[in-house]
């Protein structure tokens, strides 16, 4: 269904080839996953398949791209008849105002009759298990629901090929599994060919029939997931698996393990992990965490906070009472639509609570933001919203000047170094990848040495490697700053935060020390993926109250 031969591409403004001699085939009903680190050329490849190159992205292109029976490079405007495309951000892919209109948009463009369109709308919504959304407005949908509606709107075109560009970026694990299960069913039952790009192999490996590994514009490996062994995976510059880190840490990376397929890693880890654990170490940790509470100044205070978005029927935030002390690192954890970003937006004064009181650094943020300017560093979900200058250096330097930071140039260099951006100092801001933009936005937020740093979903779009870099940087920053992170990434939160506020349906369902909360609450039931060590610890030791949070702690805790 898809045939790519000797494909080369470079953007008109770039000197380097972004794609180099790409060759692969995908058969009917096959589920193929393209993986690779940030900037490997995955999204460009998808855009070529969608016929968006060179109409939307100009450049030099060579080779042959066939989707279905359509030669994409010759007839790009015909591609939509055989292939549907789903991009990472569902919000901008909704082009009407209601779910029904959205799903019928594609067939309407084909000029089909009303009965056929009605039939397709019903079928597509049933396939994505979104029948109950039919009468809803697009403005009321959560990100997970939006993604389902976008998928239905594509399916209503009855594509033979479905191409997806990182569809899981904004979704929590439960929704991602649901989405991939739907896609797998489509491949098996309807023989739709699926080609998905992912940076997180964990999320998709169990569904894939074939893997294609891309790096710096080249295919460096392709084959069945079962054929990808641990040692191969270590050599490939692709997003690594947490599992491999764990195996390395357990020092059992012997010849036998190296030759095993990555699909079997779960079994291997369970087999090689010792089955006893020294839990006293964690108990002491928990006690210290509890002991240190209530000794420091309150930096954020929320009393009976409620919030309702306009033109909606339900409250997005319900009766939140929260106190955050100076020096704390708080993770606001919850699935899509639980109210994390809303809570953060109220803290920085973007939204005003419908009822209740919020004080940040002693002032009401919505009314007196100027009083906290420079004292709060805020990095929104879309970091580009914070940029005003052309280059990386000038961006940070201008903020430093605005905040009257002494030795602005020196502080800028230091902030760039902390964020690992020194080598990009003269780059144009808009040429940076999403991960680098995020780091730059954090650099502008921390250059004035704020007392409080607030981050909204900082790991969105980041691959495993970029995420680890970000965690290391934030570990340094949190030593001098109170940190608040809203995320559904538990792995990030356990590594950085000493406390967690667990949010579900707009309410805090649990609040406390990270270790205690992670081991006492059923976070998994909320659709949040537990990091591997927590999953394994809970599996090996039923009903434990505290345990390891990181791979290093896991290794330490194992009785030799």
């Amino acid at each position, binding site marked *: 269904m898809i045939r790519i031969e000797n494909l080369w591409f470079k953007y008109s403004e770039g000197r380097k080839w972004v794609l180099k001699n790409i060759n692969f085939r995908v058969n009917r009903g096959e589920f193929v996953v393209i993986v690779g680190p940030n900037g490997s050329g995955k999204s460009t490849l998808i855009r070529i398949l969608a016929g*968006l190159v060179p109409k*939307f992205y100009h450049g030099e292109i060579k080779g042959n791209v066939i989707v279905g029976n359509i030669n994409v490079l010759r007839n790009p*405007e015909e591609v*939509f008849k055989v292939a549907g495309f789903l*991009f990472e*951000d569902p*919000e*901008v*892919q909704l*082009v*009407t*105002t*209601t779910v*029904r*209109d959205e799903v019928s*948009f*594609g*067939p*309407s*463009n*084909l*000029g*089909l*009759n009303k009965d056929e*369109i*009605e039939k397709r*709308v019903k079928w597509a919504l049933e396939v994505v298990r979104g029948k109950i959304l039919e009468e*809803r*407005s697009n*403005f*009321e949908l959560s990100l997970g629901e939006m993604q389902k509606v976008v998928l239905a709107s*594509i399916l209503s*075109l009855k594509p033979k090929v479905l191409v997806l560009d990182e569809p899981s970026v904004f979704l929590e694990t439960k929704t991602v599994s649901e989405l991939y299960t739907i896609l797998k069913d489509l491949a098996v039952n309807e023989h739709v060919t699926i080609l998905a790009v992912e940076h997180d192999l964990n999320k998709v490996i169990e569904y894939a029939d074939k893997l294609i590994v891309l790096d710096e514009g080249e295919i460096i490996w392709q084959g069945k997931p079962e054929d990808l062994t641990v040692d191969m995976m270590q050599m490939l510059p692709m997003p690594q698996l947490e599992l491999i880190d764990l195996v390395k840490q357990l020092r059992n990376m012997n010849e036998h393990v190296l030759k095993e397929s990555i699909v079997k890693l779960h079994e291997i880890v369970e087999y090689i992990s010792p089955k006893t654990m020294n839990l006293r170490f964690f108990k002491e940790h928990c006690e210290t965490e509890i002991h240190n509470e209530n000794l420091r100044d309150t930096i954020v205070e929320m009393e009976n906070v409620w919030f309702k978005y*306009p*033109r909606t029927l339900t409250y997005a935030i319900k009766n939140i009472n929260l106190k955050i002390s100076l020096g704390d690192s708080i993770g606001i954890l919850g699935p899509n639509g639980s109210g994390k970003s809303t809570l953060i937006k109220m803290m*920085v*004064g*973007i*939204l*005003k609570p419908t009822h209740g009181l919020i004080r940040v650094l002693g002032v009401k943020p919505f009314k007196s*933001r*100027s009083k906290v*300017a*420079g004292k*709060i*560093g*805020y990095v*929104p979900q*879309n970091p*580009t*919203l*914070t*940029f*005003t200058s052309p280059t990386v250096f000038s961006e940070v330097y201008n903020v430093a000047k*605005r*905040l009257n930071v002494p030795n602005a140039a020196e502080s800028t260099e230091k902030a760039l170094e902390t964020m690992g951006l020194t080598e990009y100092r003269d780059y144009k801001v*808009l040429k940076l990848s999403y991960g680098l933009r995020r780091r730059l936005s954090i650099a*502008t*937020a921390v250059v*004035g040495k704020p007392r409080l740093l607030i981050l909204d979903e900082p790991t969105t779009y980041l691959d495993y490697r970029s995420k680890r870099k970000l965690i290391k940087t934030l570990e340094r920053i949190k030593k001098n700053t109170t940190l608040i992170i809203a995320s559904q990434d538990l792995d990030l939160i356990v590594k950085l935060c000493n406390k967690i506020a667990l949010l579900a349906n707009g309410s805090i369902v649990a609040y406390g020390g990270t270790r205690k909360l992670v081991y006492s609450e059923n976070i998994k039931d909320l659709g949040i993926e537990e990091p591997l060590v927590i999953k394994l610890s809970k599996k090996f030791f039923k009903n434990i109250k505290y345990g390891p949070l990181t791979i290093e702690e896991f290794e330490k805790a194992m009785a030799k």
Partner: protein
Amino acid sequence: MILWIIDKIRIALTFSKEKNIISNAHIVFKIVSTIIFFAIAITVRGLTDALILLSYPVILTCLTRKAKVLFESLQAIILPISLLFFFTWLLSPEGPLSMYAAIRAATISLRISALALTLLIIFSFTNPVSLSAFLEKCRLPLTLTQSIILTWRLIPLVLKDFLEALASLKLRKYPTWKTLIPLTVVSMEKALRTSETLYIKGFGWSKKRTYVTPLGNVKDGLIMLGLVMLISLTLFIL
């Protein structure tokens, strides 16, 4: 203040899918009644007439059975209307101390308020797809009718980005106008994604589209039209 006003405008321009007489009314009657209301608003001169005119958005609110809609629309226009009143009164040829100047300023402000509130309330409860379908039946080009839908869809998104950018930049001590820089960039990126989406969903492939969204209910449309006629009759008699 600017944050507050932008937030209120965003709220007032957000489409609501609630079912009521206004949302159910046939699009043609909605358009006709709005045009008639505009025509009456232009002819109104006195303060009493302006107050009668203002009763139309109030009645529309009653039809929606949501007093909050009127309140939210009022919040969105309160600042510009107050400024209009103030400057009309201050710069009046009779001088600000004249009673006539105050009455004239009030009349003009109430007329504009009635128009703005009516538009915002009808706007909130009109599905742009039905408007687009109607305009297309009137032979308007496809690209223009789709632009209406997209504008309806994207205005709240752009305003949401504006609020976020403004907050981020204010915390970095930037002046408000600098918000336009990231806002322009992000809006352009979003516009590009949206145009890609339209393209891959086959928009523009054929000049003729099929519309499945109904144009609305004639009975409810007649109620809206009847109300406008009643107001114009009242104004005519008085």
